[in-house]
């Protein structure tokens, strides 16, 4: 299997009026076709910014400067034209965000939001798009897709909204799906179902998933390979089990020690 995505010494800097703050430093890694790669880290570690940079969602702010290379199928997303980047967004690379409520447009029907990316990138008719949207909703195990198609986000539960987000991002059959803390806002039992869903999508559609979470145990269960980020730097990379049982960096050790488990007490 080849590399789908290659990030080479990526740095992200916030340009304030006076101060410059480097929030991601020199991060390099790659995502292979069809794998699930996890990025772990606490708030402020730069994991979300890295994800946004890959999805091309950072360069529209003037206050952020990006250095390095992000190669998607060999194409550098950081230097290509906006138009070219746009052709990848939602088509080959799709995103699932943390807060399904605020990440969905509150005044737009679910159906239209799910099929938006194929409307932008494809040439399908309205009817075909709807068929595809229904298919995607079935994929993510939403019941009554015909009904939900005409609903608005606030009428759904948190778990259903996240399924909608995932349906919207898998409808175009992307090569890479970036999921940024997709289960943090959800209840444990629903978390569980959503994770299974990601596994299924990965298996059936052969979609590579970049799974970002603060929860190391989730990454342990879901991902084959993982990265650990701390204060903007990549401090650990490798096989998930390897990281879990033989962490090299002291921060990783501390992080693992802090995970509440049934074995130890405060």
């Amino acid at each position, binding site marked *: 299997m080849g590399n789908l995505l290659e990030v080479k010494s990526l740095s992200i800097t916030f340009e304030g009026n006076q101060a410059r703050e480097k929030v991601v430093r020199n991060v390099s890694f790659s995502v292979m076709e069809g794998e699930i790669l996890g990025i772990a880290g606490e708030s402020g570690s730069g994991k979300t910014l890295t994800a*946004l940079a890959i*999805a*091309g*969602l950072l360069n*529209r702010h003037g206050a952020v400067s990006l250095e390095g290379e992000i190669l998607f199928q060999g194409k550098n997303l950081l230097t290509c034209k906006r138009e070219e980047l*746009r*052709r*990848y*967004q*939602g*088509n080959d690379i*799709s*995103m699932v*965000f943390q*807060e399904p409520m*605020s*990440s*969905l*447009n*509150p*005044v*737009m029907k679910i159906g239209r939001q799910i099929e*938006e*990316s194929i409307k*932008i*990138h494809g040439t399908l008719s309205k009817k075909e798009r709807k068929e595809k949207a229904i298919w995607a909703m079935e994929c993510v195990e939403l019941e009554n897709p015909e009904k939900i198609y005409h609903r*608005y986000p*606030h*009428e759904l539960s948190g778990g259903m909204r996240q399924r909608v*987000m995932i349906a*919207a*991002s898998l409808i175009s059959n992307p090569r890479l799906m970036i999921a940024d803390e997709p289960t943090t806002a959800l209840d444990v039992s629903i978390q569980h179902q959503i994770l299974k869903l990601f596994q299924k999508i990965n298996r059936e559609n052969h979609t590579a998933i970049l799974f970002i979470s603060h929860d190391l145990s989730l990454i342990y269960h879901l991902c084959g390979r993982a990265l650990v980020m701390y204060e903007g730097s990549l401090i650990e990379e490798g096989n998930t089990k390897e990281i879990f049982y033989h962490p090299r960096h002291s921060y990783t050790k501390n992080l693992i020690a802090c995970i509440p488990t049934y074995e130890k007490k405060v």
Partner: protein
Amino acid sequence: MKYIIKKIFFFILTLLIVVFLTFLAFQIIPGDPAVSLLGTEGTPLKVAALREEMGLNKPVGERFLTWVLNFMKGDMGISYSYQIPVSELITDKIPVTFLLTMLSFAFIICMGIPLGIYTSKHAGSRLDRLIMTVNQVTMAIPPFFLGIILTYLFGLVLKWFVPGGYISYSDDFFGFFTYLIFPAIAIAFPKSAMVVKLFRGSIIEEAKKDYVRTAYSRGNTINGVLYGHVLKNAILPVITFLAVVFADIIAGSIIIEQVFGIPGLGRMLITSIQNRDYPVVQAIIVCIAFVVLGSNLLADILLKVLDPRIKL
């Protein structure tokens, strides 16, 4: 549907409260309407007869009911100063004020909405800063002063129109229409500046939200995000504001009619207030209340259509 019925119910209820309050307000005024109506020739005997005739001897509740029922039939009482039915006085004034209000509202929409979109899209650019500075000053201009300036500039210096040379709509509708343009601008300009500011701020606020990021992640263009996602959300507070603006336009038109010498409802109201011609004042207030509350009702319904989250 239930929402709309509820809103209409409240509209009627509020209107009734307003009508009752105005009625009550004019009941507690010192002075006897019969005396003021008769003026200097009011002998006690005549006054008593007139009181009987006007039904002033009956209790307040009964008088209110008769008044409301008569009002709905189009009988708004008799003007003290002109001695003719109020309805006759008002009917030919209504179209004047109505057109002035509508024209002003149209100006506000046509100036406020596009400028709001333009400035928010180019927020921070030189032109945006220029527009917003001018905007800030424009907001501060009282409509009647703008009216005076327009009269001076376009009426007296440039002679584009004749100040005070009002043309009745029954004589020459086109002339009437053109005469209303400057008054409408005087009302609309400061208000549209407010709309620009509010709309621009609302768009910029909305553009920071998470769903906008989602829209970009699907490959939308900037315009696609703006017109497909942001505007529908950003317009919501503007609609609420426009309902308020509508009420303000009516208030503005009262003054502007005075500035440009337009014989509309506003001018009638002022003269009636000065002459203490209460039946006329009362009738005009109720008419305005109807329009203002009606515009609020329309805004509520429009909001409900645009925003599925609204529940009562």
